[in-house]
C-alpha cells in the first residue's frame, strides 16, 4: 500500500492547482521515504489525469450525497478511504475545506496533525519527515516532527510549486464502497454565495491591489478597484479593512485569509503586520504606498512610496491606463 496519501480534487478533467501542490509535497515525501503515492477522490472526476504525477493508486468514494460539500458526510467518506489506503502521511490542502476536515480526520484516525506547512524535507538516516510552518504570526518558523504515524498534514495553499509530471503513468483506480445517509449530516450547507469585485480570482491574479485601514473607509476601495481593473488583477484587503466591514471577509489576505503569489502586489494604507505579510511572501514584486515612512511594510516591499494614497493612486491609475491602452 502506498504510504503517502493526497486528498485530491479534479477540476474540468484535470487535477486542481491545490492537488498539484499537494503532489509536489507527496513526491518529496515519497522520494525520501521510499514510499508510493495514492490519491483519494470524493465523487466523480477523471482519475487518469493523476497517473502522470507518479500516483500509484486512486481511491475513490463515489456517492450522490458527495456532490456538494457537507462536512459530516465528507468526513465519513474521507475516513473510510484514508483507512482503506492505509497511508502513513496524509496530505490535505490548508484551504477552507482542509481547515474544516483535517483535524477531525486526524482525531478519527488517531493520527497526529501538522497544519499550514510551507516546507517538507526528510531528515537523516532515520528518515524522519520534517514539516516547516510559520509560528507566532510569521515572526518565527517552526520545524515539526511527528511522534507517531499516521500523521495528517495540511499545506499552506500557493506555497509549494505545482507538481511536474514524473515518469510513466502506471496507476489504477480502487473504488471504495461507502453507504451514506443524509441523516448523518448533523449540519447542512444550505446556500453558497460568491463575492468578487473584478472578475479575477484573488488567488490566481497576476496583480493584486490591497487596501488597509489607511484607506479610511469603504470609498477608498473604489480607487483600488479601478487600479486592479486596469492591471487585470484583483482587489485584496488587510484584516483591519475586512473587520471594519469595508469589504467582504473573502478578500482578506494574510495568515487567516488568503495566500497570494502575484507578479505584482500593491499594498495601500497597510502597515505590514507579520500576519498580513504571511499571505504575500510569494509575491515577486511588492509595492507599498503608505503615509508613514516607519511603517513595517517598507521592510518587506521592494518599491515604496511614502505619501497619501489619495494623491498617488489617481496619477498611477491614469499612467497605467495609458500604458495598458484601455
Amino acid at each position: 500500500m502506498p504510504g503517502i496519501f493526497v486528498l485530491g480534487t479534479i477540476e474540468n478533467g484535470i487535477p486542481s492547482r491545490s492537488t498539484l501542490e499537494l503532489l509536489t509535497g507527496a513526491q518529496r515525501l515519497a522520494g525520501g521515504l521510499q514510499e508510493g503515492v495514492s490519491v483519494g477522490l470524493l465523487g466523480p472526476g477523471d482519475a487518469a489525469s493523476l497517473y502522470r504525477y507518479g500516483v500509484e493508486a486512486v481511491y475513490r468514494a463515489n456517492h450522490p450525497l458527495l456532490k456538494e460539500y457537507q462536512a459530516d458526510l465528507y468526513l465519513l467518506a474521507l475516513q473510510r478511504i484514508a483507512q482503506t489506503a492505509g497511508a502513513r502521511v496524509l496530505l490535505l490542502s490548508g484551504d477552507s475545506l482542509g481547515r474544516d476536515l483535517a483535524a477531525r480526520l486526524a482525531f478519527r484516525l488517531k493520527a497526529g496533525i501538522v497544519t499550514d506547512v510551507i516546507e517538507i524535507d526528510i531528515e537523516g538516516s532515520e528518515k524522519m519527515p520534517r514539516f516547516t510552518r510559520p509560528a507566532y504570526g510569521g515572526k518565527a518558523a517552526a520545524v515539526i516532527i511527528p511522534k507517531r504515524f499516521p500523521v495528517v498534514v495540511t499545506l499552506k495553499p500557493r506555497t509549494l510549486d505545482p507538481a511536474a509530471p514524473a515518469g510513466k503513468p502506471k496507476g489504477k483506480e480502487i473504488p471504495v464502497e461507502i453507504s451514506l445517509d443524509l441523516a448523518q449530516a448533523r449540519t447542512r450547507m444550505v446556500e453558497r454565495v460568491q463575492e468578487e469585485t473584478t472578475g479575477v480570482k484573488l488567488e490566481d491574479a497576476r496583480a493584486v491591489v490591497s487596501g488597509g485601514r489607511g484607506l479610511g473607509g469603504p470609498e477608498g476601495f473604489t480607487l483600488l478597484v479601478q487600479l486592479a481593473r486596469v492591471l487585470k488583477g484583483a482587489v485584496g484587503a488587510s484584516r483591519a479593512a475586512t473587520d471594519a466591514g469595508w469589504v467582504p471577509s473573502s478578500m482578506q489576505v494574510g495568515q487567516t485569509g488568503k495566500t497570494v503569489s502575484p507578479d505584482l502586489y500593491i499594498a495601500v494604507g497597510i502597515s505590514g503586520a507579520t500576519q498580513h505579510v504571511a499571505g504575500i511572501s510569494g509575491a515577486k514584486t511588492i509595492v507599498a504606498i503608505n503615509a508613514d515612512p516607519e511603517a513595517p511594510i517598507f521592510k518587506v516591499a521592494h518599491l515604496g512610496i511614502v505619501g497619501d494614497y489619495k494623491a498617488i493612486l489617481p496619477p498611477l491609475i491614469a499612467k497605467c491606463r495609458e500604458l495598458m491602452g484601455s
Partner: protein
Amino acid sequence: MRIVVCVKQIIDPELPASQFRIDAESKRQRANGHPLVISPYDENALEVALTLKEKTGGTVAVVSAGEPSAISALRKGLAMGADEAALISDPALDGSDAFGLAAALARGIQKLGTPDLVLCGCESGDWADRTVGPILAEALNIPCVSFVAQVEAQDGRLRMRRVVEEGYEIWEGAPPLLLTILSHESNVPRYPKVKDIMTASRRSIPTWSAADLGVEAGDIGKAAMRTEVQQLTLPSRESRCELLDGEPAQQVATLITKLRERKAI
C-alpha cells in the same frame, strides 16, 4: 442556551517583530514581560456568545487551559459579560498538543454542564494550528462548523455564515454545536465597563487540575504528544526597499519605470 467560550491567553500577537525573541530551550516565544492578552479571535467568539445570550437568553461561561496567569483572561471574560468562568491548570498539561488540550477542555466543559454551543477562535494568535476547536468537537462528539463570521438563532436552530475562498456559505444545525469564530464587523468585541471590571476582579474562579476533571494521565502532557516542535527559528528579514522620491507625479513615473524593468507590469 448554555454557551461555553474557550479562551487562550497569549503574549500580545501585535507586538512588533523587532521585539520578538525565542526561548531556545522551550522553543517558545520568550515572555519578557510583554502584555498577556486573550487570543484575538477568542474575543470575537465571546462577543458572538454575549450577543446570542442577549437575544435568546441563557448563560455564557468562559474556560481556559494554561498557566495560573490565565485567570486574568477569564476575569476579562466575566467583565465583558460572561456569567461563569473556570481555569484548567496543571503542570501535568505541560507538553500537551492539541489532542491533550482538547481532552482536558472537553472534561472541563462537561463539568460546567452539558453545553448547547461551544465557541472557539478560528485560530490562536500564537501558534494558529486551527486544530483545538475541531478536535474538541470530536472529543465532545458534536458537529463543528469552522471559520464562522456570523451566527443567528432561529426556532431553536442556528444559522451560520462560514467564510470560504469564493465568498461565504450558509450552514444550519441544531445544538449542540461547536463553532470556530472569525472576526467580522458584527462581532467586534465590546469594552468592559469599569464597574464590571471591578465586580469581576472580586469573583472567585475555580481552578481544576487534570485529576479534578478525571482526565487520564496518558491523554495529556508529553506522553500523549503526537507531534513535537523540533526547532523554532527567526526568519531572516533584510530590508530591500527602494523609496521613490519626489512629487506624486514624479513618484508615479519612477514607479512605472521600475515596474517595467522588473517586468511586473
